[in-house]
């Protein structure tokens, strides 16, 4: 092997090495950028207390729909950040607040006061008034939001679309609240 070809060899290796370094330097932030929505801190921060209005709008023994603006929004979210939920007031400060999303595949369940059932239009899931599963494919009852009453106003801890993924994670005690 002659000297110049060794030098060229070195240059080639240097070139490959430099590009490998650059690739790592580029890929790390890009992958970080792509995965950023799944950061644990960000997921925790997504949840916060939102107001659902005064207690007087929820008669005892009835189930009413309430809507709230998702706590974290972008200016271009439009109507998609208006999230509905079902509020059942048993009596006094005793509430159940259900996510509108069916526990099966997330379709919006409708409340029927006539039969005291929540029915899902997608695959026929049915739930009793207390949110427990009545019939159909759902693997569990309706997802429930944590709630509290302050100054005669109802608040729920919300901000995340409920899925079995959230629930399973919270059941292992890694992310606090039972739902949402």
């Amino acid at each position, binding site marked *: 092997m002659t000297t110049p070809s060794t030098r060229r060899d070195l240059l080639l290796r240097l070139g490959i090495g430099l590009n490998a370094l650059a690739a790592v330097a580029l890929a790390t932030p890009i992958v970080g950028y792509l995965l950023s929505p799944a950061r644990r801190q960000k997921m925790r921060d997504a949840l916060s207390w939102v107001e659902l209005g005064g207690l007087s709008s929820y008669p005892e023994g009835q189930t009413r729909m309430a809507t709230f603006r998702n706590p974290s929004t972008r200016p*271009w979210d439009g109507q*998609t950040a208006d999230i509905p939920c079902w509020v059942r007031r048993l009596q006094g400060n005793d509430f159940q607040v259900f996510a509108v999303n069916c526990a099966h*595949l997330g379709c919006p369940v409708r409340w029927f006061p006539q*039969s005291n059932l929540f029915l*899902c239009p997608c695959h026929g899931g049915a739930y009793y008034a207390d949110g427990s599963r009545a019939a159909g494919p759902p693997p569990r009852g309706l997802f429930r939001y944590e709630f509290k009453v302050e100054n005669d106003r109802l608040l729920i801890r919300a901000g995340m679309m409920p899925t079995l993924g959230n629930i399973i994670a919270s059941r292992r005690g890694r992310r606090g609240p039972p739902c949402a």
Partner: protein
Amino acid sequence: MRLIRPTLEWLDARLKIGAAIRETADHPVPRRSASWWYVFGSGALAIFVLQVATGICLALVYVPSANEAYQSLQVLNHQQALGWFVRALHGWGSNFMVGLVLIHMIQVFLFGAFKFPRELTWMVGVLLLVVTLGMAFTGQVLRFDQDAYWGLGILTSIAGRVPVIGGQIVQIVLGGPIIAGETLTRFFALHVFVIPGLLIGFVGVHLMMVLKLGVNEYPMPGRLVDKDTYIAEYEAEVHRDGVPFVPNAFRKDLVFSGLMLGAVVLCALVFGPFGPGGAPDPTIIQTEPRPDYFFLWIFSVAALMPPGIETFVLLVGPPLGILFLFLLPLWAGVGEKSWRRRPVAVLCVILAILGWATLTHYGRTSPWSPVMDAWSALPVPAKDLEGKSALVRQGALVFQAKQCRNCHALGDAGGRRGPALDDVATRLTKDQLIRQVLQGGGNMPAYGVNLSPAETTALVSFLETLHPSNEPAAQDASQKSASVR
């Protein structure tokens, strides 16, 4: 005219592709392969070119913002000159493309064209199927209406079922904690940049291999593929009895592609664009979300699967199916090509088509969904009321008012979630009826807390009358003997 030849020569002296084009055009194909059976792939390619052109046109007006996408679709439909037509072309083009890709795939499978040495061509073809379906799904999301919103909800809920990292996957799919602005922009990026890029790349490789390896010969029953001799035999055949690709095969491709493009134009003119449906406002829950037809069968599977294995089927089924198709040529890469001697292959295709059609039909009719307005909209059949006692009629009222009709049909009208009740009295005795109403079971909610004793009595009296006149109501034999004594 006189300028054309020198211009072409000037260009080719620099581009140097004339020879390659001539070689491609003249490459010999087996005489019988210049057949009408071999036109589906080029049909799909022609539609893809149409999709690129119409897609670019739509992107000139469409706004990929959760706040404005719906309005921009309305503008395209109603204000932008010919916007409705371009949307219709793109929507119908997508249906035709998915259809042609599937037909092409079935033809290739039945003609054994995936066997040696064309295994990789088939594998890239499977990837093309995946990215085509990816285009179809992401395109359905960009038509940002109620169906798109709740379709994303279904996708999210399936993703949320992934063990351990389901929650994280949901966040990455949605680009945040809810379906909102960043969800739409990432599906826009997928539909407009990422997947088309993959599609163009795969199409290039796919076509290159078709040219390099030669068009599959028309399969002859009994002529087996042997890795040691196949290539020599194929070469000998195309040299002995081949015809140039242009014009012998090309003219049929050309006619078919033209027909398909014409059919898309016709459908677009006659049927117009798809949607958008209701506004993507999650607070409007009076909706019955359904996916586009090529995903309806998955929607049906989600309804019909036993809950115990559902997560497994939804998460593992699709990748396993794709993997099976992908690895098929490695498993069955030699031997018989003709469908006439591959009964299992033919049976698989027939079963797949029947299964797909059946599930799609169920997806369209959704018999598992309660008919939400049956209780208020449908009349009780007159024969069930005529000459009946006040108690029975009271029971009919309870039946409607408690929305039993939403899941149970009477006189062929009403929900199909539960059994029709026209002859329920022949199947269940009074005690069994009471038990079923109060305790539910067999996929029926329990109405015990929801019915007063008086209502239950009335309802069961009504149900007891529901039997054909020539069939007596069911009786509890033990009760009968007890009362005799």
